[in-house]
């Protein structure tokens, strides 16, 4: 009897609408990504071109995957790389190990490191997987550099993961609506995210959001296995 009940479930499912979202839609366009997706990192600059990273190693210290290697150095006085005494002299992230948790972004005191939405990248060698400052640092326009093995589409390089921090440092409600994080790729300030309470009031298609996350995680694992 139990056996039949079990097969009944299977049978019923065969006629349900599948919930799978096609990631690549018809023409090869990527499906829209959720706002808070964590992709590959960038190292940002200030408006004047100075690097934001001060080589403090907080990101490396917090990284649970131990995939960041940073070394600071004295800023050359005549040609400073970043404002202040110290700059990130070596900066490397090993994408074979990164789990895109964004803790590095949380830890960074200068918003130097943020994550883009790009996760469509795969490597054919270990060296390619270890991004150094040459790859991570944004270009003169404050935009991420595009590596040959990365699949960038127009407009994809506008948002970074740090946006979530725009409203709630440490998740404290007291900071709702205040800009505490600039949140742009490169530089610039974004307006704050709507206060959590307001957002909750609006009926957000919540499962959609969650979905995006799952999707992202799956694909990321795929990337890591290369």
């Amino acid at each position, binding site marked *: 009897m139990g056996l039949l009940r079990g097969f009944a479930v299977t049978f019923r499912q065969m006629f349900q609408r599948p919930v799978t979202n096609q990631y690549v839609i018809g023409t090869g366009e990527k499906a829209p990504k959720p706002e808070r997706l964590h992709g590959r990192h960038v190292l940002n600059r200030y408006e004047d071109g100075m690097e934001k990273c*001060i080589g403090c190693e907080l990101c*490396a*210290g917090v990284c649970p995957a131990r995939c960041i290697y940073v070394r600071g150095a*004295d800023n050359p006085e005549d040609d400073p790389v970043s404002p202040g005494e110290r700059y990130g002299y070596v900066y490397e992230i090993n994408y074979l190990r990164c789990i895109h948790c964004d803790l590095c972004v949380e830890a960074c005191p200068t918003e130097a490191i943020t994550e883009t939405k790009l996760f469509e990248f795969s490597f054919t060698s270990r060296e390619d997987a270890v991004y150094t400052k040459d790859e991570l640092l944004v270009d003169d326009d404050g935009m991420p550099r595009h590596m040959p093995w990365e699949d960038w589409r127009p407009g994809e390089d506008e948002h970074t993961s740090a946006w979530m921090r725009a409203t709630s440092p440490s998740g404290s409600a007291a900071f709702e609506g205040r800009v505490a994080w600039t949140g742009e790729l490169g530089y610039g300030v974004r307006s704050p995210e709507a206060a959590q309470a307001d957002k909750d009031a609006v009926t957000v298609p919540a499962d959609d959001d969650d979905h995006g996350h799952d999707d992202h995680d799956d694909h990321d694992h795929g990337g890591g296995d290369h």
Partner: protein
Amino acid sequence: MAEDTTVDAAPDVVDDGVAVTIDGTEVRARKGELLIDAAERHGVYIPRFCYHERMRPVGMCRMCIVEVDTGRGPSLQPSCMLECTPDMVVDTTSEVTRKAQEGVLEFLLVNHPLDCPVCDKGGECPLQDQTMSNGPGESRYIEQKRHLEKPIPISDLVLLDRERCILCDRCTRFASEVAGDPLIHFLHRGNHTEVNTFPDEPFASYFSGNTVQICPVGALTATSYRFKARPWDLTQTESTCQSCSVGCRVAVQASRNEVLRILGVDVDPVNWGWLCDKGRFDFEAINSDERLAAPLVRQGDELAPAGWAQALRQAADALSGALDSGGPVSIGVLGGARLTNEDAYAWTRFAKGVLGTDNCDAQLGDGLPPEVVLGLPRATIDEVCRPGGTVVVVGPDPKEELPVLFLRLRHAVVEAGATLIEVAPARSGISDYATVTLTHRPGEVAEVVRALVGETGQSSDLGGADASAVGRARALLDQADGDVCVVLGRPSVAESADFVTDAASVLQRALPGARFLSALRRSNVHGALDMGLAPGLLPGRVRLEDSGAEFAEAWGAVPATVGLDAHGMLTAAAEGRLSVLVLLGADPLADFPDRHLAERALATVPTIVASDLFLTESSARAHVVLPAAGFAECEGTTTNLEGRVSVLGQKVTPPGTARSDWMIAAELARLMGHDLGLESPAAIWDEICTLAPSHRGVTTDLLRSTDSDAGVLVPLEREEPAPADVDSTDGVAAEDVAEAAVDQAAADDTLEAQAAEAEGVAAAAEQVAAEEAGELAEEAAADGPVEDGAEEAVASRGPATLRFDGIPAVTLAPRDAYSLRLVATRKLYDQGTGVQQSAQLAPLAPGSVLRLNRYDFERLGVEEGSVVRVASARGALRVPVVVDAGVPRGAAAVYVNQPGLAATSLVDAAAAVTEVRVETGIDS
């Protein structure tokens, strides 16, 4: 902690303590103990910034305030300024305490910049930590903070960021109280107060690095560590500094296989947490690009990289060839003070057991005979620095050669009422603290010492020392409370060691209870001598002639005859009597007192095999160069000047294929058909504690037990001095004494316990000791009359089987009126590889001028600073001349091993003293 258990386990014993209640628990504090210490000892940590247990409390920061009720109701008081009184009730967690501490922190943070991410202290910063644990969650301060120029160098090694300074007074107190270099001060007043140096007076102290370590914030940082790493990158191991023989305990910190920082570890019997700047900063040499990473083999004029197999084969062939043609006596092994004990043992065993040569010397003709170093009753640093004790320093300038010993001596004199009598060829760094300094003419130290102990009458000429000063010193010696300690070393390499040996004989005779602390400088020279790297010695402080049979049994063979020392070997080499000279980290061209002899020796000897960290001037002339593993790169043990064996830590791998010296010895032996059976440092140590009489019972377990952090004094049976008299001094000193006594007691207990654990071995050792002591007594009786006291002293010191029985007085021809006698002393920073390969330290080697007494200077009739010609029988040099009141009449002083002046090219190692003439008016 050890202290803790002593007190808790035996409350009755410490019953002169007082009962205080801390956070509701009644505890026993020691009499006069500061509340902050008593609380910490009982597990309550009171936050603090300015208080440091090795310095006087000042109550600057107020962070340690707690609510204290001494019977008149609770009030807030700084616990670092408050001695425990009976029935004191303390609340370290009350609301009032908490608010007060939060207030203090909020005020401290008013002007403290938010530099944490770029600050070298970030991550290990007491200000960060205590703000998290005891501070207010948020700052209410929104105004501009104080701004000052970001880091300013206050010396070549230390940077100061005044914005970060919280004015705790630690660095300034250290400089004036501990180092005696009051070069860093508080300037200005009120809100403008800042720490700084005076414009023309950099913080040029040999101890400046300690301020970086004790600064509770990142205001003082070290140039060598600047932005190199963050605390969470570092891993560390404990080790013992190998830059001199004091043997300070250190924490070696490294990241990514690179040593980045050395910190002092507070061990009671040795360094109290302090380090000198050489020991702290010369780690850069470990990472130097110049390090030898592969063996080199000579091809014509060039040294070409080679594989180990080829290099070792070539060395082994040379050694076999020498054995065949000239026999064992045609091989010499020079050096070994850089080695670990295990390395030194392996080399002794290889040289004496396999090669059969006794031509071994770990010293380079600039030390003292081993029987003087090992055979006199030995003192510990604590004994030498006993509060209220009397010390005679006959030796080199401790500040230049043994810096942390200088700190301990200075502390003994300044804070603990010790009396220091210095006998030296010129005034030194310790002269300012000596109760009396007797300067003697080179070669006449024994005359002064004779006069000092009253062996000669008031003759008119006391070796150049001032008669009234000698009188005063004599009176001090007569009044000495308890036994006198002597710091004994070789003050100047331009005079023979015989004079100091003679002086030691005089002191030993006249002061029967006296103990001696060797002031030989090189890192593990005492360990190398213990391991038998000296002519006529075998491991364990025994003579070849006495214990040869036992070692022959264990090793298969020992040399038939007593061999040559460094001077003898170099002479033999220069005369063509040596076929192979092995340099174990030795650079005779730089370090042997007689450069001409060293030159001739290295030029003549057919084969030189060098094991070294760098291609030094000498190893560059070798035929086979083997790269060795150095400090922080190998495991093993080391022995400091007290005879204290401590464990070295390995933190990084040696460069390239460099390897430990014991491996080189074992490999060479294997290639020559002998299996030494030595597999690892631990196995070698096991063999040492079985074979070496003085090291019996000093097992690896004992060395590695947590109670032996400071090291283990060998031999184990050595008696410790009676605890110091607590009431004899007052104030801070009394506390120190009390603490020291308790610590000492604790240390004794544990040592005894350990010794008892090692029963079997120890018992055997005792037996051997007794037998050998008996033998010695007989031998001594046969040798001639010996003072009873001296004999007793030696016999009671356990199985130190080697003993020194004094030498007949050495005489010296009078100086002719036209010559001056040369005094050649060392500076801390010199041309040694440790300093020269450290970018920060290399420029600090001061170079040398010729220093003369005003009287002798004026006879020259030249301007100060003008270049003169100094000529000895050996050679001549051109050097600027200056007046130095600290140099006695008839002497001319220079520094050796300094850039720009090859002072040793004036010295003839065979001559008793080096007479020089100073000539002017030569322009070329």
